[in-house]
């Protein structure tokens, strides 16, 4: 198809625009990666652009041997695995009954769930509740409240509603109760949706720092993101600028080590990213573009 001149110019501009957009998106990573592999002197004097200066791997060696870092990593992995498994289970068994139109009281039950998406008790009442339940500084506090995710539950519910009734009917004729129908018929047929929701939960748990920040003070229970936050805060720009003497500067973590910590914390997400992209995009489409 022959393109007119304005259209060809548009194409060139379009491709240029997106190249720039891609570069802008990747720039912070490349820069940080370079810094993590550079000597501290080069980093602090501002000589690192996109390529490492004074290449060294000591930072990574240090971080991967740091007990506190490894512990935080372990906590995050545990939290993500346990939290995702439990959340997926709870969300699925909640979605199934709500997908049955003949369930008595369905409308009211749905309303009860959806209402919590619009209105909540707020930070302080929730914190006080956790305090009263003696959940502060425990691992469960980081996943228990999140297990009731109405948005995810609705996605699964909608999917279940789309499955043909004949499945349930023929299973019932064979004498199956709802437990069997759910776990042996519906779940196997819903694997893509469930994978998507599992990934939604996993990313949430891996990235959460806020809940850890307000509930966890025990150092051995700090997940990765909170660990990183404290690492950064200990030598944020604020202190870097204010610390004019060598003593204070010594106590703050070298920038190259911080950079390495961040890069390592990003690796799990990057590893899973191809799956994330595929399933998340589908999930967004299912969740938002409803007829």
């Amino acid at each position, binding site marked *: 198809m022959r393109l007119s001149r304005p259209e060809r110019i548009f194409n060139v501009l379009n491709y240029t625009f997106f190249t720039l957009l891609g570069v802008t998106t990747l720039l912070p990573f490349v820069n940080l990666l370079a810094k993590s592999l550079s000597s501290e002197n080069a980093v602090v004097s501002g000589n690192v652009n996109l390529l490492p200066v004074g290449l060294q791997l000591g930072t990574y060696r240090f971080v991967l041997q740091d007990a506190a870092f490894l512990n935080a990593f372990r906590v995050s992995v545990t939290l993500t695995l346990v939290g995702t498994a439990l959340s997926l289970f709870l969300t699925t068994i909640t979605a199934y009954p709500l997908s049955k139109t003949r369930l008595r009281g*369905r409308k009211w039950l749905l309303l009860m769930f959806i209402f*919590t998406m*619009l*209105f909540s008790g707020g930070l302080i009442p929730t914190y006080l509740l956790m305090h009263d339940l003696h959940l502060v500084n425990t691992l469960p506090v980081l996943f228990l409240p999140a297990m009731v995710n109405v948005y995810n539950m609705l996605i699964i519910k909608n999917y279940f509603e789309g499955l043909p009734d004949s499945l349930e009917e023929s299973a019932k004729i064979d004498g199956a109760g709802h437990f069997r129908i759910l776990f042996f018929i519906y779940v196997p047929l819903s694997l893509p949706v469930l994978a998507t929701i599992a990934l939604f939960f996993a990313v949430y748990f891996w990235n959460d720092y806020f809940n850890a920040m307000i509930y966890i003070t025990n150092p051995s229970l700090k997940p990765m993101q909170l660990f990183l936050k404290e690492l950064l805060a200990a030598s944020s720009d604020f202190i870097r600028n204010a610390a004019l003497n060598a003593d204070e500067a010594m106590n703050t973590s070298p920038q190259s080590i911080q950079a390495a910590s961040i890069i390592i914390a990003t690796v799990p997400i990057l590893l899973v990213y191809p799956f994330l992209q595929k399933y998340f995009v589908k999930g967004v489409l299912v969740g938002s573009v409803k007829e």
Partner: protein
Amino acid sequence: MASRPFGASRSRARTPVWKSVRADWDLYLLLLPGICFLLLFKYAPMYGIAIAFKDFRIFDGIAASPWVGFKHFERLIESGEFAAVLRNTLAISLLKIAILFPVPIVVAILLNEMKQMLFKRSIQTVIYLPHFLSWIIVSGLFIDLLSVNGGIVNKWLEQMGFEPVAFFLDNRYFRSVLIATAGWKETGWSTIVYLAAFSAIDPGLYEAARIDGASRFRQIWHVTLPGIAPIIVLMFILRLGSLFEAGTEQILAMYNPTVYKVSDVIGTYVYRVGLGRQEYSFTTAVGLFESVIGFILVLSGNVLSRKYLRRGIW
């Protein structure tokens, strides 16, 4: 089993509740854990909202703390501190909406015009990525990039003859940093909804436009934009519903005392003053204020949406 009439209400009039529950006992059993969790973790805290009307003493508990009526709400209205917080919340939120709402739409349209599939997919892979990073990682990336000691942005500024800028410490620039980093993180991801909406547009309309001699640009103007207008309005209404959520997690990860003046928002204020200064009752009142207004906004938005677009949010 006799065939049931379509509407459930008719069968409801015939069977008493306990019979329906007994018949579907396994369904209700499956539902039970979810409901328990819901009641415990979502509804129980709502009871705690009562402390907004009391002088809460943590050792006395909610019931035993004295009732003070609207005292905290009066303080809210009169507090200069809160007024500044509210100002920041609205300013940052509205700025974010004004700047960051249109951008994904434009990017989606431009992306849609890209015919080279490989390039398009690669770019999409790249721009979706920041969405999956935590705000801690994003703040780490940008604190480093914008740093005064060794950050490349400041180096470029210096090379161009400008003074270096402490972006995270400067009240003139910090909000821009918040908006720019939020854009970096979410713009790519936000295009997905619009890209999906494009595929819902009837290709016949494009055909008709082409036959009438419309250039690509006119096609975008007359077919694409009207086609995604409903989704744009819906997304806008949804966005307005969270007007008071100016990005608490982001700001908590990025702010510091120097820039509280321009970036302390309701969410960060409740955290700092509520948990930090332990002013539980007052900040619960603040939180209640935010929740109620947010609720009204979302409901009104849904009403408007149903009325004019014939579809609601759920």
